[in-house]
């Protein structure tokens, strides 16, 4: 795909040079010299080299703020995705976080030879089926724990998801040779590997005969929903667990015990702006007796990103963004910040961990995934 093709596909040519994108871009807010529009201008005026060699090419969070506001219908996030592919083809990958461990893991995963042991965490406390209509997509949680030097809680999300599904009397499939959905690779331009992963996942899911896939990770959900169709054909109903639960709370026997807590909720970019899921998580939270949801200033489609995406260009600005967001969360007077994406949780926790070195503002506060919250509130009969 040439730059011109990208310009056409993303309708970049419509750019009115109005600068609205920059003025609502969370990166630009903290790094005034970052201008999405400048990227477009470089493309439109044929400065491919400058564009590809621009470090900030990998700063975009694909948070969709610009896409939702652009008056000229330019798909900047897609533009980023595609241009990064061009860049990576020339060996440009931006600045991978955690020295690129995760990207490398994903690439390794894509090797058909390996046999993962990604389900070792499954104890018989959780009931799963060999064959079922519903498939639970675990995602990369099993890896996060071992890579990151603090407790991410990612795996607990997987566990609690099963716990809740079980409580509803659902025993989903989980696939032992499920592989990374490829989200991060796609967004850092490694289309080749992404395709491998996508093809693999599509194949095994077809073989499993699943009719519906439930995700606890919005990235997986988004990737399956919007990106897979361009590379593989997979005909399954897709849902985020919050959507599924909001739908089925009534049925089954999800009864909650009183849990006195004041919480606030972080709309993850992908679950929110990408997939438009705003109501269900809130519905869930409010369903738990005693839980009081106090909203932050910027919510729903105006929500602020957690500051990093695709494990790349995680810099001082990313830190500032999440610090600002955490302060906004604390300002609500909530004791706990609820997220619905393992990455949000990781990034917020990271902001607190690294707080030690350069003492920024106090951003300490409990962070928990909505799945954990729901699970923790389940009555005893819930987990029978």
């Amino acid at each position, binding site marked *: 795909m040439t730059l011109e093709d990208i310009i056409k596909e993303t309708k970049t040519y419509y750019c*009115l040079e109005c*600068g*609205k994108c*920059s*003025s*609502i871009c969370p990166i630009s807010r903290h790094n005034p010299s970052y201008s999405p*529009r400048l990227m477009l201008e470089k493309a439109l005026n044929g400065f491919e080299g400058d564009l590809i060699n621009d470090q900030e090419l990998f700063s975009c969070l694909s948070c969709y703020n610009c896409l939702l*506001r652009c008056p000229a219908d330019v798909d900047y996030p897609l533009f980023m995705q595609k241009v990064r592919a061009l860049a990576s083809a020339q060996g440009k990958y931006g600045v991978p976080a955690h020295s690129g461990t995760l990207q490398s893991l994903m690439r390794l995963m894509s090797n058909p030879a390996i046999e993962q042991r990604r389900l070792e965490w499954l104890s018989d406390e959780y009931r799963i089926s060999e064959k079922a209509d519903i498939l639970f997509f675990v995602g990369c949680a099993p890896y996060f724990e071992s890579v990151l030097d603090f407790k991410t809680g990612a795996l607990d999300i997987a566990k609690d998801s099963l716990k809740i599904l079980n409580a509803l009397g659902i025993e989903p499939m989980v696939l032992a040779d499920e592989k990374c959905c490829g989200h991060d690779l796609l967004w850092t331009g490694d289309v080749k590997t992404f395709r491998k992963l996508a093809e693999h996942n599509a194949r095994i899911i077809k073989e499993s005969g699943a009719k519906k896939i439930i995700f606890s990770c919005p990235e997986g959900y988004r990737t399956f929903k919007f990106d897979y169709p361009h590379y593989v054909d997979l005909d399954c109903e897709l849902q985020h667990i919050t959507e599924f639960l909001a739908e089925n709370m009534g049925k089954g026997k999800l009864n909650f015990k009183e849990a006195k807590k004041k919480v606030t909720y972080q709309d993850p970019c992908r679950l929110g702006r990408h997939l438009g899921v705003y109501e269900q998580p809130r519905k869930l939270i409010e369903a738990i007796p005693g839980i009081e949801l106090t909203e932050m200033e910027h919510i729903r489609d105006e929500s602020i990103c957690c500051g990093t995406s695709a494990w790349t260009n995680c810099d001082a600005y990313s830190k500032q963004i999440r610090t600002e967001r955490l302060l906004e969360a604390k300002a609500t007077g909530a004791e706990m910040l609820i997220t619905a994406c393992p990455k949000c949780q990781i990034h917020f926790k990271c902001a607190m961990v690294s707080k030690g070195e350069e003492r920024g503002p106090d951003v300490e506060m409990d962070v928990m995934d909505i799945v954990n919250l729901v699970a923790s509130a389940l009555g005893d009969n819930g987990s029978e």
Partner: protein
Amino acid sequence: MAVNNSVLIIGGGIAGIQSAIDLANMGFQVCLVEKSPSIGGRMAQLDKTFPTNDCAMCILAPKMIEAGRHANIKLLTYSEVLAVDGEVGNFKVSIKKKARSVDEKKCTGCGVCVEKCPWKVNNEFDLNLGQRKAIYFAFPQTVPKLPVIDREHCAYFLKGKCRACEKFCEAGAIKYDQEDEIIEVEAKAIIVAAGFDLYDPTPLREYGYGRIQNVITAMEYERLSSASGPTAGELKRPSDGKIASDIAFIQCVGSRDVRSNRYCSSVCCMYGTKEAILAYEHQPGTKSTIFYIDLRAVGKRFQEYIQRAKDEYNVTYIRSRPGNIELNHHTQNPIIWYEDTTTGETKSLEVELVILCQALIPPRDIQEMASILSIELDEYGFVKTPDGLSHPVDTTRVGILACGCVHSPKDIPDSVVQASAAAARAAEILSGGT
């Protein structure tokens, strides 16, 4: 009124008025239908006009009165077209004349009723920034000079008591039991001059209209700035009545935007500039910042006007479309976030008042009107011309013409030109041509 050789004009704004006067002066019979209680239209709401800074009412009033007094013009205000039958040469039009609850023959327009009426209601003519009575004149120079009872707010119609206006009206002109009339009119040609409505910026949440008090629309500003407006011409900002001395205008609100209207609304760059100049005139020293994408000043003396705004009226133009507006909770000042498009840097600007230069949109009832007249509309909902080139004031139906902003947004001179043009086409049709 089955007058032959007559033309029906729908809409009593400057365009409709001009068409009516021209045709009447040519000797044709004209029936001018206006849905609100007075003719005058949008221009009557404006304070001044660019680029001459003529006061809008000063130049409009004489025309309104000429139309009101002309022997060949029949005014039907507070009236709506219900149905149109027939075809070019003999249209049969039925019009609903809504009940004013005032006897036109007896009323002298003295206004005692308005004075005595105890019930205050928000005045839509002032975009609800000011108040009027339940029996009212929308504005001082209304033509015809007849009040109207707003039955939704009149205590007599709500609770069956009060009757103050009736008590004090020496002419005995108050008629609570007056009923809507249906009037049949014959016309050889019809001119649609239904004008425009204004884009409501509420959906563009990033600009905070409705959420941030000191973010207002351009038309609200016009009323605040107008001597006959709710603040008697003082530019008091909503939050605290402070006279704003540092203000910003945002262009393309509801235009050049896929999320609202993709077309350019033509006049906003200029009226924004005019309002900035007015702000300075009201309060010398006032600083204005205008955010724009392309500064569309294409008319006679427009570029000079812009230059003057820069040189003499402390107006700064920034080529940028702000992303969002936040609120400074302490000062109630809006904070505008924008990209300095010359450097690509993202900046913020705190001002005391933000004016959203809202787009002109087709009249909200245009679909209905189009089906009554069976004329086609373009993709935006404006009246469509046959070929977009050589029949600028025609519609897709022979014998029905259109002029002014109902075709597409345009300024006053262009509307007036089209109004006379439509009159000429009508005269052509009435002379047997098509």
